[in-house]
């Protein structure tokens, strides 16, 4: 990996005080700019791709590492919880793809909207969700983000601008265009990131929504998280043209290395500027998932274990940031290991707390079917509980 470095205070300090870690802490929190080159250049379709050099800070790189380590630990813990039958139903894990979540968060604000499909645990975390809410929801408890009524595929966080969590493949894409429509309607200079997978890229509603977004210049950024497998079907077996960033035709596209958090950040920042001025853009994140499609899928019947371990060795997003941190001497091995241990501890604590969280009350079965006020509190479709009052 080619690195072009500026001489920073850390490099200077390294020669002076190798043993005093407190000075390094000062430099760890420094916000002086580090410029890193992405692993591969961006490829554009009908657009000039942004530069390969990404500006970042030590603080940001540390936060990348911390967040990705937490996400990775959360997903692995969810794996064991599922096998222990505490999580039921479908559980789609995001490990391997964490760079997309953290890179996107770094480029945008909480006022921008993100909407995604069912592989939503880590994006929920990135948008401000807590581990407790996450695990409680997975185990169907009251403290879950959706009060235990949504499940793995229905995480939402309104205050964080996270619009879910959708089970039907591709159905979130028109919703995402609706979010962008509302942003344009309200003129609030925010954008919507609509995430979908390589499997959903063949849905008709994607192209319908793309047409409308392009027609009305909606600030919608469609992000294809291409992990190369639509459940068990490889992309070349499902799509005539697996170049998903080109499939927008009249809509410009950008292909991004989705395992490089800095590349994702650069691309998202670029896309946000573009969308606010010119309308929709497609980002294809070239990424990979280590687990199978879901916990019911071993993940090895349609791909070899060598492939999975190969990607893990060469392209793992956390390893990449770890190498960056070590190379720039922002932290040493021990500190990074401590961060990972801390992440593990946080996850274990959250799981313990979530296990204590009670199951929802039986009356919760009927709450939130309708909004109170002009509607009715519904106990089955036909019985009227409360008569609505006219405004």
């Amino acid at each position: 990996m080619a690195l072009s470095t500026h001489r920073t205070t850390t490099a200077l300090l390294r020669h002076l005080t190798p043993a005093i870690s407190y000075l390094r802490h000062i430099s760890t929190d420094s916000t002086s700019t580090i410029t890193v080159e992405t692993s591969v250049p961006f490829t554009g379709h009908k657009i000039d791709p942004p530069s390969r050099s990404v500006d970042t800070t030590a603080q940001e790189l540390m936060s990348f590492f911390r967040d990705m380590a937490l996400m990775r630990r959360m997903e692995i813990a969810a794996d064991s919880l599922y096998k222990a039958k505490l999580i039921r139903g479908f559980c789609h894990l995001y490990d391997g793809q964490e760079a997309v979540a953290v890179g996107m968060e770094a480029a945008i604000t909480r006022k921008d909207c993100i909407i995604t499909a069912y592989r939503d645990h880590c994006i929920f975390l990135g948008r401000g969700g807590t581990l407790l809410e996450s695990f409680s929801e997975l185990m169907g408890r009251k403290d879950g983000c959706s009060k235990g009524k949504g499940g793995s595929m229905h995480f939402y966080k309104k205050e964080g601008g996270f619009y879910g969590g959708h089970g039907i493949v591709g159905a979130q894409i028109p919703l995402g265009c609706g979010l962008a429509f509302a942003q344009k309607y309200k003129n609030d200079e925010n954008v919507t990131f609509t995430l979908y997978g390589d499997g959903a890229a063949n849905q008709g509603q994607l192209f319908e929504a793309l047409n409308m977004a392009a027609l009305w210049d909606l600030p919608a950024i469609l992000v294809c998280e291409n992990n190369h497998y639509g459940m068990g079907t490889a992309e070349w077996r499902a799509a005539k043209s697996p170049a998903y960033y080109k499939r927008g035709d009249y809509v410009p596209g950008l292909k991004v290395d989705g395992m490089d958090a800095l590349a994702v950040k650069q691309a998202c920042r670029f896309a946000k500027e573009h969308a606010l001025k010119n309308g929709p853009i497609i980002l294809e994140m070239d990424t990979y998932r280590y687990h199978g499609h879901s916990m019911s899928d071993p993940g090895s019947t349609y791909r070899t274990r060598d492939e999975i371990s190969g990607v893990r060795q060469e392209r793992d997003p956390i390893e990449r940031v770890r190498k960056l941190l070590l190379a720039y001497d922002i932290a040493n091995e021990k500190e990074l290991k401590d961060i990972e241990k801390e992440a593990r501890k946080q996850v274990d604590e959250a799981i313990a707390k979530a296990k204590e969280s009670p199951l929802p009350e039986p009356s919760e079965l009927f709450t939130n079917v309708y909004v109170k006020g002009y509607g009715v509190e519904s106990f089955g479709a036909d019985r009227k509980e409360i008569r609505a009052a006219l405004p």
Partner: protein
Amino acid sequence: MAAIVQGIGSTAAPCASSNKFLLSSLGSSLLEKKRNFFVVRSDGKCYTGLNQQQRRAQNVVTNAVATKEEKASAAVGSKPGHELLLFEALREGLEEEMDRDPCVCVMGEDVGHYGGSYKVTKGLAEKYGDLRVLDTPIAENSFTGMGIGAAMTGLRPIVEGMNMGFLLLAFNQISNNCGMLHYTSGGQFKIPIVIRGPGGVGRQLGAEHSQRLESYFQSIPGIQMVACSTAYNAKGLMKAAIRSDNPVILFEHVLLYNLKERIPDEEYVLNLEEAEMVRPGEHVTILTYSRMRYHVMQAAKTLVNNGYDPEVIDIRSLKPFDLYTIGNSVKKTHRVLIVEECMRTGGIGASLTAAINENFHDHLDAPIVCLSSQDVPTPYAGTLEEWTLVQPAQIVSAVEQLCL
């Protein structure tokens, strides 16, 4: 009121399925008998003979149909109101809500520059601009989804299906996202969307353009369904649907758009979950909605002349049912006839029958009779199309059978 209904056939109903009541010769001879005993006195009181029926018909209602002028003036008071057609009433309601709340917007095919295929949104695009009255491409699934996404952020979109049948393409969005998002998000998002459009059997429009989707949508948890039938309730329900924080599907009927009525000048909003008492009565409760209301009122004229006193209720709220009003009526008359345009299988009438049976079984003197359309795709030929639907003659004979 405009007479949309077909003429009453004096001949027997077609020999279609068994759920229709054929005008049996026994029934007609009983009619003959009743007429012989029937003496109407000048004060409206009926001289009763030996027949059980006549004993009950103490007060013959001279006017079978409550005229709209009476009703409107009763509702309004001193102001005379203004006359308009049903689609204009819908537009008025829409315009008032768009004036009142800048978050209200309309999206659909040809709603903007064209003015709406049934002129419901005529003139609105010039007034509010292209973004608030949005002409969409022909992509029902996506623009319904777009409306739902916009509603999640707080806008109040009204999605128009050019014909309700086209919304079948948007079924996934309506069922999974529109209906369920409030629940699966634990109450975080509300979807204050209105989905409206004309449905029902028109004049020889063919099978695909004559669909009644209320039966398909009724199971979706989380949505409300209302059906308008007069200009008065069209405007009121439109306004109520827009103000409601729940997703509401407003069913209009292709053949009712040109109904002329006098509606109040002042602002009014109707209750979404309430049924409308069209004609109070004593003998039988007839539950209906949308266009069948007019077939029922036509049949009611005949029934009144024959000495029956039907109570006609326009249920208006298809989900949830107004079991309060319906229940009070059942407790009074003990007999129920449901007349609907839906298909027999799995229709609104089927659900309503189940609901009334469950809740008011002890009050029923006879099994509930449900007259619905035939379980066939609507044919193009005029006569066949007529036989697909419930006609007033069938309603009359059903009531007579029920009240035996």
